[in-house]
């Protein structure tokens, strides 16, 4: 399976994602510079975390206009798997591949910590190695992860079962007190209607190796590999 990691000026988790694919998963991976205008030969794209364009104006707002983005949008529309992590999630929102927008954390502070997440679905390309309602622990590191969408969109997300991860406590209870940033409905990650584009604030690439203190992120990457195999490609 071949991955592409899209690199914008200011991306800073690009090398971490690259490392996971190459060294931990043992698959092929390329960096894709934002000024490239086409994409061929990739089975999945990762839009990594960081501060694309300094996160100036709004997170993800400027990156969304990079020359590579039309190709990313095409790729997604054709069913290609796209995983947007942290700043990657913010870019997907600005690009309209996922609904909603990101606000500053409720505390107004950047937060680096570990959070518990509840897995809401395991019939997706990103979660088939997890169990429904399983609690996993992933690191977060962001200043603007306070996901917002209007009522209508939220209802749609719920009805269409598009919320993949919510913030919770160790025993799986959701609640504002376990929500680090104030996001609507404790949302930590959502998919598009077709289920091939995931945006999530936590960083699976930071806990895909034992030495880093956890393997829960690995399950997400393993899910991607599994779904690729199943699709028989």
């Amino acid at each position: 399976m071949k991955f592409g990691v899209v690199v914008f000026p200011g991306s800073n988790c690009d090398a971490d994602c690259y490392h996971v694919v190459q060294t931990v998963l043992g698959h092929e991976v390329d960096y894709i510079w934002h000024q490239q205008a086409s994409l061929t030969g990739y089975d999945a794209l990762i839009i990594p975390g960081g501060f694309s364009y300094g996160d100036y104006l709004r997170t993800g707002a400027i990156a969304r206009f990079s020359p590579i983005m039309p190709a990313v949008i095409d790729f997604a529309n054709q069913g290609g798997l796209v995983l947007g992590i942290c700043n990657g999630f913010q870019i997907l929102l600005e690009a309209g591949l996922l609904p909603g927008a990101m606000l500053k954390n409720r505390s107004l502070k950047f937060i680096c910590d570990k959070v518990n997440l509840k897995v809401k679905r395991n019939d997706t390309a990103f979660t088939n190695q997890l169990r429904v309602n399983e609690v996993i622990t992933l690191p977060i590191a962001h200043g603007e992860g306070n996901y917002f969408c209007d009522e209508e969109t939220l209802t749609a997300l719920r009805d269409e079962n598009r919320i993949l991860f919510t913030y919770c406590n160790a025993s799986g209870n959701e609640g504002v007190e376990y929500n680090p940033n104030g996001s609507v409905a404790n949302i930590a990650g959502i998919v598009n209607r077709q289920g091939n584009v995931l945006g999530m604030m936590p960083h699976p690439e930071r806990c895909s190796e034992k030495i880093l203190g956890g393997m829960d992120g690995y399950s997400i990457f393993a899910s991607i590999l599994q779904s690729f195999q199943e699709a028989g490609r």
Partner: protein
Amino acid sequence: MYKANIYVTLKKGVLDPQGNAVKNSLHVLGYQAVSEVRIGKLIEVWLEADDEQNARRELEELIDRLLANPVIEDYQVEIVGVE
């Protein structure tokens, strides 16, 4: 050369974490008279255009494409000067 002020504010109904935090700290400091604070952006733009109408048209395009996010933000444009 036109100078424009663009006021970008959070839509009604969108929670403003920054405004809230400021309001709370004003209360802590004893400014109970303040009942609400909302924080938006003031974007100053200087641009060349043939006339005010063109300037405004251009500005609205910029705003729609980049400067404001319609999911959460409203905006107003004011042309404040010509040089």
